[in-house]
Protein backbone atom coordinates (compact mmCIF):
# COMPACT_ATOMS: atom_id res chain seq x y z
CA UNK A 1 0.00 0.00 0.00
CA UNK A 2 1.42 3.32 -1.05
CA UNK A 3 -1.21 5.47 0.67
CA UNK A 4 -1.55 7.70 -2.36
CA UNK A 5 -5.13 8.47 -1.35
CA UNK A 6 -4.76 8.38 2.42
CA UNK A 7 -7.78 9.97 4.12
CA UNK A 8 -9.42 11.08 0.90
CA UNK A 9 -13.20 10.71 0.77
CA UNK A 10 -14.20 9.22 -2.57
CA UNK A 11 -17.45 8.30 -4.30
CA UNK A 12 -17.34 5.74 -7.09
CA UNK A 13 -20.52 5.14 -9.06
CA UNK A 14 -21.35 1.82 -10.69
CA UNK A 15 -19.12 -0.04 -8.26
CA UNK A 16 -21.11 -3.27 -8.22
CA UNK A 17 -18.81 -5.02 -10.64
CA UNK A 18 -16.12 -4.70 -13.29
CA UNK A 19 -14.24 -1.44 -13.62
CA UNK A 20 -16.14 0.36 -10.84
CA UNK A 21 -15.45 -2.43 -8.39
CA UNK A 22 -11.74 -2.42 -9.26
CA UNK A 23 -11.59 1.36 -8.81
CA UNK A 24 -13.28 1.16 -5.39
CA UNK A 25 -10.93 -1.60 -4.24
CA UNK A 26 -7.80 0.09 -5.56
CA UNK A 27 -8.77 3.39 -3.92
CA UNK A 28 -9.30 1.59 -0.61
CA UNK A 29 -5.90 -0.10 -0.94
CA UNK A 30 -4.40 3.36 -1.35
CA UNK A 31 -5.91 4.51 1.93
CA UNK A 32 -9.12 6.20 0.77
CA UNK A 33 -12.55 6.09 2.39
CA UNK A 34 -14.69 4.89 -0.50
CA UNK A 35 -18.43 5.21 -0.95
CA UNK A 36 -19.24 2.50 -3.49
CA UNK A 37 -22.45 3.27 -5.32
CA UNK A 38 -24.63 0.87 -7.23
CA UNK A 39 -28.28 1.04 -8.22
CA UNK A 40 -29.02 -2.61 -7.42
CA UNK A 41 -29.42 -3.22 -3.69
CA UNK A 42 -26.83 -5.65 -2.36
CA UNK A 43 -24.55 -5.56 -5.43
CA UNK A 44 -21.59 -4.11 -3.51
CA UNK A 45 -22.17 -6.23 -0.41
CA UNK A 46 -21.87 -9.33 -2.61
CA UNK A 47 -18.14 -8.72 -3.08
CA UNK A 48 -17.48 -6.73 0.07
CA UNK A 49 -16.47 -9.72 2.15
CA UNK A 50 -12.76 -9.05 2.33
CA UNK A 51 -11.63 -7.74 5.73
CA UNK A 52 -9.19 -5.52 3.91
CA UNK A 53 -12.06 -3.39 2.68
CA UNK A 54 -14.69 -3.73 5.38
CA UNK A 55 -13.73 -0.50 7.15
CA UNK A 56 -12.85 1.55 4.13
CA UNK A 57 -15.57 0.77 1.58
CA UNK A 58 -19.14 1.80 2.34
CA UNK A 59 -21.91 0.62 0.00
CA UNK A 60 -24.28 3.37 -1.10
CA UNK A 61 -27.28 2.29 -3.14
CA UNK A 62 -29.00 4.92 -5.27
CA UNK A 63 -29.94 5.70 -8.84
CA UNK A 64 -27.64 8.41 -10.21
CA UNK A 65 -30.38 9.52 -12.62
CA UNK A 66 -32.78 10.22 -9.76
CA UNK A 67 -32.16 13.72 -8.43
CA UNK A 68 -33.71 13.10 -5.06
CA UNK A 69 -31.80 9.87 -4.44
CA UNK A 70 -28.50 11.38 -5.63
CA UNK A 71 -29.00 14.43 -3.44
CA UNK A 72 -29.70 12.24 -0.43
CA UNK A 73 -26.49 10.30 -1.03
CA UNK A 74 -24.38 13.44 -1.15
CA UNK A 75 -26.07 14.74 2.00
CA UNK A 76 -25.22 11.47 3.72
CA UNK A 77 -21.54 11.74 2.76
CA UNK A 78 -21.39 15.42 3.69
CA UNK A 79 -23.05 14.85 7.06
CA UNK A 80 -20.75 11.97 7.94
CA UNK A 81 -17.42 13.16 6.48
CA UNK A 82 -17.93 16.88 5.92
CA UNK A 83 -16.22 16.69 2.58
CA UNK A 84 -15.81 14.90 -0.74
CA UNK A 85 -12.40 14.77 -2.39
CA UNK A 86 -12.97 12.51 -5.38
CA UNK A 87 -15.92 11.58 -7.55
CA UNK A 88 -15.57 8.84 -10.15
CA UNK A 89 -18.45 8.89 -12.60
CA UNK A 90 -18.21 5.29 -13.72
CA UNK A 91 -21.84 4.14 -13.83
CA UNK A 92 -23.00 3.61 -17.36
CA UNK A 93 -25.07 1.35 -19.54
CA UNK A 94 -24.41 0.02 -22.99
CA UNK A 95 -26.62 -1.33 -25.75
CA UNK A 96 -24.92 -2.06 -29.05
CA UNK A 97 -27.28 -1.54 -31.97
CA UNK A 98 -26.69 -0.98 -35.67
CA UNK A 99 -28.06 2.03 -37.55
CA UNK A 100 -31.66 1.34 -38.52
CA UNK A 101 -32.09 -0.89 -35.50
CA UNK A 102 -31.56 1.64 -32.73
CA UNK A 103 -34.19 1.35 -30.03
CA UNK A 104 -35.49 4.76 -28.85
CA UNK A 105 -36.03 3.24 -25.42
CA UNK A 106 -32.41 2.10 -25.16
CA UNK A 107 -31.19 5.40 -26.57
CA UNK A 108 -33.11 7.36 -23.91
CA UNK A 109 -31.86 5.09 -21.16
CA UNK A 110 -28.23 5.42 -22.25
CA UNK A 111 -28.43 9.22 -22.35
CA UNK A 112 -30.25 9.31 -19.00
CA UNK A 113 -27.55 7.34 -17.21
CA UNK A 114 -24.35 8.03 -19.18
CA UNK A 115 -24.90 11.73 -19.82
CA UNK A 116 -27.61 13.24 -17.60
CA UNK A 117 -26.54 11.13 -14.63
CA UNK A 118 -22.93 12.20 -15.08
CA UNK A 119 -23.92 15.86 -15.23
CA UNK A 120 -26.13 15.56 -12.15
CA UNK A 121 -23.38 13.89 -10.14
CA UNK A 122 -20.81 16.42 -11.31
CA UNK A 123 -23.04 19.31 -10.26
CA UNK A 124 -23.67 17.83 -6.82
CA UNK A 125 -19.98 17.09 -6.28
CA UNK A 126 -18.90 20.54 -7.37
CA UNK A 127 -21.22 22.09 -4.76
CA UNK A 128 -19.44 20.16 -2.01
CA UNK A 129 -15.93 20.58 -3.43
CA UNK A 130 -16.33 24.31 -4.16
CA UNK A 131 -16.01 25.24 -0.51
CA UNK A 132 -12.95 23.06 0.11
CA UNK A 133 -9.74 25.11 -0.26
CA UNK A 134 -8.05 22.06 -1.74
CA UNK A 135 -10.92 21.55 -4.22
CA UNK A 136 -11.31 18.02 -5.51
CA UNK A 137 -10.94 15.65 -8.41
CA UNK A 138 -13.73 14.47 -10.70
CA UNK A 139 -12.98 11.54 -12.98
CA UNK A 140 -15.41 10.68 -15.75
CA UNK A 141 -15.10 7.24 -17.28
CA UNK A 142 -15.65 7.63 -21.00
CA UNK A 143 -14.49 5.21 -23.68
CA UNK A 144 -12.19 5.09 -26.68
CA UNK A 145 -15.32 4.71 -28.82
CA UNK A 146 -16.28 8.21 -27.66
CA UNK A 147 -13.06 9.45 -29.26
CA UNK A 148 -12.85 7.24 -32.34
CA UNK A 149 -16.40 5.92 -32.88
CA UNK A 150 -17.22 2.29 -33.62
CA UNK A 151 -19.57 0.26 -35.78
CA UNK A 152 -22.72 -0.78 -33.94
CA UNK A 153 -22.09 1.68 -31.14
CA UNK A 154 -23.53 4.90 -32.53
CA UNK A 155 -25.55 5.85 -29.46
CA UNK A 156 -23.11 4.50 -26.90
CA UNK A 157 -20.22 6.33 -28.56
CA UNK A 158 -22.35 9.50 -28.71
CA UNK A 159 -22.93 9.33 -24.95
CA UNK A 160 -19.24 8.76 -24.30
CA UNK A 161 -18.30 11.57 -26.66
CA UNK A 162 -20.62 13.73 -24.59
CA UNK A 163 -18.84 12.64 -21.42
CA UNK A 164 -15.56 13.83 -22.94
CA UNK A 165 -17.08 17.19 -23.86
CA UNK A 166 -18.55 17.48 -20.36
CA UNK A 167 -15.10 16.83 -18.92
CA UNK A 168 -13.40 19.53 -20.95
CA UNK A 169 -16.07 22.17 -20.28
CA UNK A 170 -16.38 21.39 -16.58
CA UNK A 171 -12.59 21.56 -16.17
CA UNK A 172 -12.63 25.09 -17.60
CA UNK A 173 -15.53 26.19 -15.41
CA UNK A 174 -14.31 24.67 -12.17
CA UNK A 175 -10.55 25.20 -12.50
CA UNK A 176 -10.49 28.37 -10.43
CA UNK A 177 -12.07 26.44 -7.56
CA UNK A 178 -9.21 23.94 -7.69
CA UNK A 179 -11.60 21.25 -8.87
CA UNK A 180 -9.89 19.11 -11.49
CA UNK A 181 -11.99 17.26 -14.04
CA UNK A 182 -10.47 14.53 -16.19
CA UNK A 183 -11.59 11.52 -18.13
CA UNK A 184 -10.28 8.00 -18.49
CA UNK A 185 -11.11 6.44 -21.85
CA UNK A 186 -10.77 2.67 -21.56
CA UNK A 187 -10.31 0.50 -24.59
CA UNK A 188 -11.50 -3.09 -24.75
CA UNK A 189 -11.64 -4.19 -21.12
CA UNK A 190 -12.05 -7.61 -19.51
CA UNK A 191 -15.30 -7.53 -17.57
CA UNK A 192 -18.06 -9.99 -16.81
CA UNK A 193 -19.85 -8.82 -19.96
CA UNK A 194 -16.81 -9.72 -22.03
CA UNK A 195 -17.00 -13.38 -21.04
CA UNK A 196 -20.31 -13.65 -22.85
CA UNK A 197 -18.97 -12.08 -26.07
CA UNK A 198 -18.19 -13.99 -29.29
CA UNK A 199 -14.62 -15.20 -28.63
CA UNK A 200 -13.63 -15.31 -32.34
CA UNK A 201 -14.63 -11.69 -32.84
CA UNK A 202 -12.83 -10.84 -29.63
CA UNK A 203 -9.62 -12.35 -31.03
CA UNK A 204 -9.85 -10.08 -34.07
CA UNK A 205 -10.21 -7.06 -31.86
CA UNK A 206 -7.26 -8.08 -29.68
CA UNK A 207 -5.16 -8.29 -32.86
CA UNK A 208 -5.66 -4.54 -33.19
CA UNK A 209 -4.15 -3.84 -29.78
CA UNK A 210 -0.44 -3.09 -30.01
CA UNK A 211 0.22 -4.43 -26.54
CA UNK A 212 -1.43 -7.73 -27.48
CA UNK A 213 -3.97 -7.98 -24.67
CA UNK A 214 -7.19 -6.41 -23.53
CA UNK A 215 -7.22 -4.13 -20.51
CA UNK A 216 -7.91 -5.53 -17.06
CA UNK A 217 -10.17 -3.47 -14.75
CA UNK A 218 -7.07 -2.89 -12.60
CA UNK A 219 -5.40 -1.06 -15.51
CA UNK A 220 -8.27 1.41 -15.53
CA UNK A 221 -8.34 1.62 -11.73
CA UNK A 222 -4.63 2.46 -11.55
CA UNK A 223 -5.08 5.35 -13.97
CA UNK A 224 -7.93 6.57 -11.75
CA UNK A 225 -5.65 6.40 -8.69
CA UNK A 226 -3.26 8.75 -10.46
CA UNK A 227 -6.02 11.24 -11.30
CA UNK A 228 -7.52 11.02 -7.81
CA UNK A 229 -4.17 11.53 -6.09
CA UNK A 230 -2.12 14.65 -5.57
CA UNK A 231 0.36 13.30 -8.14
CA UNK A 232 -1.95 14.80 -10.77
CA UNK A 233 -2.52 18.11 -8.98
CA UNK A 234 -1.81 20.12 -12.15
CA UNK A 235 -3.70 17.84 -14.57
CA UNK A 236 -7.19 18.91 -15.61
CA UNK A 237 -9.37 18.82 -18.71
CA UNK A 238 -7.55 15.76 -20.04
CA UNK A 239 -8.70 12.52 -21.58
CA UNK A 240 -6.33 9.66 -20.87
CA UNK A 241 -6.70 6.62 -23.08
CA UNK A 242 -6.06 3.35 -21.26
CA UNK A 243 -6.17 1.07 -24.26
CA UNK A 244 -2.77 -0.55 -24.85
CA UNK A 245 -2.29 1.51 -28.02
CA UNK A 246 -5.28 0.21 -29.92
CA UNK A 247 -5.52 0.78 -33.66
CA UNK A 248 -9.18 1.59 -34.30
Amino acid at each position, binding site marked *: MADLLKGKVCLVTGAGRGIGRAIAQQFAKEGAIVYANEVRQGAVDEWLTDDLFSNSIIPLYFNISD*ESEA*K*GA*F*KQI*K*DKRGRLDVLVNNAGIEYNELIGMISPKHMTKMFEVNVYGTIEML*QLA*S*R*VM*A*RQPEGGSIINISSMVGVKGNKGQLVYSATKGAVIAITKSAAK*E*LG*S*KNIRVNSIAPGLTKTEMMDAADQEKLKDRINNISMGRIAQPLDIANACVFLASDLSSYVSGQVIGVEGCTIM
Partner: protein
Amino acid sequence: MMTNIEKYKNIFIRVFDVREDSLNESFTFADTEKWDSLGHITLISELENEFDVMFDTEDILSFGSFENGMKILKKYRVSFDN
Protein backbone atom coordinates in the same frame (compact mmCIF):
# COMPACT_ATOMS: atom_id res chain seq x y z
CA MET B 1 -24.29 33.74 18.36
CA MET B 2 -25.29 34.97 14.93
CA THR B 3 -28.88 34.97 13.77
CA ASN B 4 -29.84 33.31 10.52
CA ILE B 5 -30.22 36.62 8.72
CA GLU B 6 -26.71 37.61 9.84
CA LYS B 7 -25.34 34.28 8.62
CA TYR B 8 -27.22 34.71 5.35
CA LYS B 9 -25.94 38.23 4.79
CA ASN B 10 -22.38 37.30 5.69
CA ILE B 11 -22.33 34.67 2.97
CA PHE B 12 -23.43 37.21 0.36
CA ILE B 13 -20.86 39.70 1.60
CA ARG B 14 -18.10 37.10 1.47
CA VAL B 15 -19.02 35.51 -1.87
CA PHE B 16 -19.81 38.68 -3.81
CA ASP B 17 -17.53 41.09 -1.96
CA VAL B 18 -20.31 43.63 -1.36
CA ARG B 19 -21.34 45.94 1.48
CA GLU B 20 -24.12 44.96 3.84
CA ASP B 21 -26.22 48.01 2.93
CA SER B 22 -26.42 46.82 -0.67
CA LEU B 23 -28.24 43.65 0.39
CA ASN B 24 -31.86 44.51 -0.25
CA GLU B 25 -34.73 43.63 -2.59
CA SER B 26 -32.82 45.01 -5.59
CA PHE B 27 -29.79 42.78 -5.06
CA THR B 28 -30.17 40.35 -7.95
CA PHE B 29 -28.19 38.04 -10.17
CA ALA B 30 -28.54 40.41 -13.11
CA ASP B 31 -27.17 43.42 -11.24
CA THR B 32 -24.24 41.81 -9.47
CA GLU B 33 -20.95 41.59 -11.33
CA LYS B 34 -19.53 38.64 -9.38
CA TRP B 35 -22.77 36.64 -9.49
CA ASP B 36 -21.69 34.48 -12.41
CA SER B 37 -21.78 30.69 -12.78
CA LEU B 38 -18.93 30.16 -10.35
CA GLY B 39 -20.29 32.74 -7.92
CA HIS B 40 -23.61 30.92 -7.98
CA ILE B 41 -22.01 27.54 -7.21
CA THR B 42 -20.03 29.12 -4.40
CA LEU B 43 -23.13 30.84 -2.98
CA ILE B 44 -25.19 27.64 -3.08
CA SER B 45 -22.35 25.61 -1.62
CA GLU B 46 -21.83 28.06 1.26
CA LEU B 47 -25.56 28.26 2.03
CA GLU B 48 -25.96 24.48 1.97
CA ASN B 49 -23.09 24.15 4.37
CA GLU B 50 -24.17 26.93 6.71
CA PHE B 51 -27.82 25.87 6.95
CA ASP B 52 -27.26 22.12 6.52
CA VAL B 53 -29.57 21.73 3.54
CA MET B 54 -29.32 20.35 -0.02
CA PHE B 55 -31.28 22.43 -2.50
CA ASP B 56 -33.46 20.97 -5.24
CA THR B 57 -32.34 21.86 -8.76
CA GLU B 58 -35.40 24.03 -9.38
CA ASP B 59 -34.57 26.06 -6.29
CA ILE B 60 -30.98 26.54 -7.41
CA LEU B 61 -32.18 27.73 -10.80
CA SER B 62 -34.66 30.19 -9.32
CA PHE B 63 -32.28 31.47 -6.64
CA GLY B 64 -31.69 34.73 -8.48
CA SER B 65 -31.90 37.37 -5.79
CA PHE B 66 -31.17 38.11 -2.16
CA GLU B 67 -34.90 38.30 -1.39
CA ASN B 68 -35.89 35.16 -3.24
CA GLY B 69 -33.10 33.22 -1.56
CA MET B 70 -34.71 33.79 1.82
CA LYS B 71 -38.07 32.57 0.53
CA ILE B 72 -36.39 29.42 -0.78
CA LEU B 73 -34.53 28.78 2.46
CA LYS B 74 -37.80 29.10 4.38
CA LYS B 75 -39.02 26.07 2.39
CA TYR B 76 -36.14 24.17 3.98
CA ARG B 77 -37.29 25.29 7.44
CA VAL B 78 -34.70 28.01 7.84
CA SER B 79 -36.32 30.81 9.82
CA PHE B 80 -35.40 34.48 9.46
CA ASP B 81 -37.76 35.69 12.17
CA ASN B 82 -35.08 36.69 14.66
